């Protein structure tokens, strides 16, 4: 058990380290060395000493351009560990960390709620589909769901905006909350937040729930056919008990392993959804940084998105042994190595998920 936890944490840390290093080298390898570019720009302004120019660049990129590469690298890592991602060019004066700290909660909120909604709805629909396999309802839903899963989530977002905001004024056009509303734990603010989040969450969820429904249907059907279910019937256990303890949990378990995959996909999708809804999350700032060539902000956002995904994966991995007793206790006689959630059964990824 300890080795399981340790291994997961070590892998997570390793991946974050790789991503951070990646971001360092990407900035330097980019065509037109951006730091040099900035240096020249500042030099052309004419009124700064070389020393001051270096310091400016350092403040923005967290790196002293004149130092040798390996020294820059270590400094960079050091800065990151302290939470210093440099300063933003497009939002002058604000540190990248500050921007990200304000943006991250919105992304986590919208992605998190969307995941819960699509998971719950999908599981429920999938269970119904498994219980009534041959019914017209099931066939209809299967068709609908296959269709929806093929539609890119950004197109759903655009459609929602088009039909539900301006022309019909059902929902606000963008932003996370109504401008002018005092921020804080008060009702006007909270209700405004909720109102503004409905469409973005719908964009994620409409496309997302289908995958869960189909997976759950398959899983439930195969569990229903498992021998221990028939044995439970042969023992005279009631329908309810069988569905809850025997079928429910066993068909739910494989879905949990997919949570991790889904999270990565949803965070990726956030760059689109937040852009179109002007929703000030990390995805939004990533795109705005890209468009304004603000490389320090861009890298900061990218690193944070990855860290969020890695972190949530880790949480899922750590929680998994709590629901599946087979992981924590190695079996007798067979290879006692506990297998991590993601190493079990590869399921086909959702459309768009193989790349993104």
């Amino acid at each position: 058990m300890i080795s399981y936890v340790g291994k997961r944490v070590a892998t997570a840390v390793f991946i974050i380290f790789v991503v951070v290093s990646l971001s360092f080298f990407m900035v330097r390898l980019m065509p037109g060395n951006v730091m040099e570019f900035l240096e020249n720009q500042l030099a052309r302004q004419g009124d700064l000493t070389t020393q001051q120019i270096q310091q400016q660049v350092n403040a923005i990129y967290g790196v002293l351009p004149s130092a040798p590469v390996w020294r820059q690298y270590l400094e960079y890592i050091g800065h990151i560990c302290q939470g210093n991602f440099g300063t933003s060019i497009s939002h002058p004066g604000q540190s990248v960390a500050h921007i990200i700290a304000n943006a991250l909660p919105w992304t986590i909120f919208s992605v998190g709620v969307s995941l819960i909604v699509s998971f719950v709805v999908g599981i429920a629909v999938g269970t119904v589909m498994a219980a009534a396999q041959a019914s017209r309802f099931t066939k209809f839903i299967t068709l609908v769901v296959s269709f929806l899963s093929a539609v890119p989530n950004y197109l759903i977002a655009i459609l929602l905006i088009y039909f539900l905001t301006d022309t019909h004024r059902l929902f606000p056009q963008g932003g996370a909350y109504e401008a002018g509303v005092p921020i804080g734990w008060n009702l006007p603010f909270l209700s405004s937040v909720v109102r503004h989040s409905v469409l973005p969450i719908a964009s994620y969820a409409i496309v997302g729930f289908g995958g869960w429904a189909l997976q759950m249907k398959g899983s439930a059907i195969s569990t229903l056919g498992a021998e221990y279910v028939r044995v439970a019937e042969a023992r005279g256990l009631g329908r309810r008990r069988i569905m809850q303890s025997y079928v429910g949990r066993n068909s739910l378990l494989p879905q949990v392993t997919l949570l991790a995959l889904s999270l990565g996909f949803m965070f990726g999708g956030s760059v689109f959804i937040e852009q179109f809804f002007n929703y000030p999350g990390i995805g939004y700032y990533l795109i705005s940084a890209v468009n304004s060539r603000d490389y320090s902000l861009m890298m900061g956002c990218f690193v944070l998105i990855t860290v969020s995904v890695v972190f949530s994966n880790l949480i899922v991995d750590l929680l998994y042994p709590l629901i599946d007793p087979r992981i924590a206790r190695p079996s007798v006689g067979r290879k006692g190595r506990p297998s991590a959630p993601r190493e079990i059964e590869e399921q086909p990824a959702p459309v768009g998920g193989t790349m993104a």
Partner: protein
Amino acid sequence: MREFFRDLWRILWADKSALTGAVLIVCYVLVAIFGPLFVHLSSFGHQSAAYLTPSWHHPLGTDSLGQGIATELIVGTRPIMEVGLLAAIITTFVGVAIGLLTGYLGGWVDIVAMRIVDIALTIPGLPLIIVIAAVIHSSNPFVLAAILSVTGWAGLARAVRSQAISLRTIDFMAAARIQGLPLRNIVGRQLLPNVGPYVAIHFLLGITGAIYAEVGLFLLGVAPLSGTNWGIMINLAMSQGALYTTKSMLYLLCPMAAIVILQVAFVFFSRALDSLFNPRLRVQ
């Protein structure tokens, strides 16, 4: 081989949605290849002809510059499908190659490769693609395809690897090795046919994934807006306020429909392949 196509035909005939999907895909491919030969985008638009309603001359109306939307759709098919296909080819090739090699060779090659696969699987692909595409601002289809493939190969590599490992220990592999068959033969005759179905389906879904990411890149303006394709069309439509008016509705919705129809066609067709390779799923 012939059996395969006969089976495929039978399944397509039974599952009408899959058949529709297959037909649609073929149509799109034909349009992509031959379309630009028949229709031409005029180099200059007429401002006065902007946002016309559908007519015989322009079956889907015109865009903000007076260009025919239908024409743009047709011309825009090729770049999208080209890149999608290329990206799928790259991911499939890389994924299978790495999976086979690591699965069969094992040892430290395997360990190192698996670490890389883990990373590629965990890092969210789309943000990475956006970042790289933003930096390498190129519209060359090969470059674009390569960028889109940066993390997509990993899932396939892992699946192929586990197949390779399990096959490595299966009896007939041992038998083949005892017979002294060369590696080429073992890989070609034993491994590939077992792994084939999974690869084929991954390839199809890879195309859809690539199209999803690619159109997304154009939508966000991260990839350069040169030439015309569906993503660029939606991008331009939105930047010219299509969301707030109904007169440019066709300009906005037509490329979206084109994308959705193609993606759905792929998904339905892949279901036929799925039941082809997995007879237990077949709807009798």
